[in-house]
């Protein structure tokens, strides 16, 4: 159960041991859970925090990822951009491959393709540390 991440806890699956493992959870991170869509629960990569700012009229997003494993992990990600009504805007993004070294904290960032984007989702997939989807 040591692999249980704080992220999983945030999703609402409260595991008793998790509380002991994880310290304080800030408000920003709490909202992160809603923004992340995983293709299979990742065991050793966790989204720690997501920062959002509107700059030059475009939504800017930064997400911190931590590799809790000592092995290098392959990660694929992409963003989906949504407007006020919750519709996707801009064309479908291509998947991007990223390498996260053992215990590395990796930053992924993105800028919205159009000004109309007010919300987003991050799609994440890590082929080698897939658990069951929740």
């Amino acid at each position, binding site marked *: 159960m040591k692999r249980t991440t704080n992220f999983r806890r945030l999703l609402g699956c409260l595991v008793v041991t998790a509380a002991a493992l994880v310290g304080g959870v800030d408000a920003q991170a709490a909202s992160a859970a809603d923004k992340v869509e995983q293709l299979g629960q990742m065991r050793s990569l966790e989204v720690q925090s997501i920062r959002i700012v509107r*700059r*030059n009229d*475009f939504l800017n997003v930064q997400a911190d990822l931590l590799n809790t494993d000592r092995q290098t992990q392959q990660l*694929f990600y*992409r963003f989906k951009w949504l407007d006020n009504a919750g519709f996707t805007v*801009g*064309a*479908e*993004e*291509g*998947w*991007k*491959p990223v390498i996260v070294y053992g215990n590395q904290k990796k930053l992924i960032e*993105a*800028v919205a*393709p*159009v*000004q109309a984007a007010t919300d987003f989702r991050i799609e994440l997939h890590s082929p080698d540390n897939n658990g069951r989807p929740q």
Partner: protein
Amino acid sequence: MTKKPSLMSKLGAPLLLVSLLAGCASTSGPVTEGGGNVTYGDAKAVETVTNEFGSTDLQMIAETMARSLSQHPSMRGQPLVSVSEVKNKTSEYIDTRSITNSVKNQLMKTGVRFATDASTMDAQTDELMRQNQTGLYKKSTAAKIGNMKGAKYILTGEITSIVKKNSSTKDVYYKFSLLLKNVEEGVDEWMDEKEIRKTSRR
């Protein structure tokens, strides 16, 4: 239906299972008969077939460049931009126009306007000439000669690569850089780079 607890459902489940196993439960779909082993894939998927320049590289470069440029202050006020040739300094046949077209496509959605560039110039000027010189068009509707707009900025750049190989590994490093130049002032206003490393092992 699932809420109806009955003898029927109790019997039905195994029955359904049997019929599934027999293979008669499959529903036909909108695929032509007698097709070969061809499938449609995801155009946005990460492509790792070989380590030559591929679709994922094109998508990543175009996206990074377009997003970066759209943020730049020079793009506010929707200036006119012309796309010039991106020089290919690799020995791979990379269609850089396809990359710049993707950048252009994405930038247009944010409101950037583009002036005719070399690749579509012929089509446009031919049409202009036809409307004016053939005598077939109504004067009032024919496009006038001498009204084409000059671009304030041109977009240019280059792609380079470093390829290293040994008996078991091939490593390719690409660097794509794009530059925005103010035509009149001769000032480089913006520049960005995208680096990609691809390694393949036998």
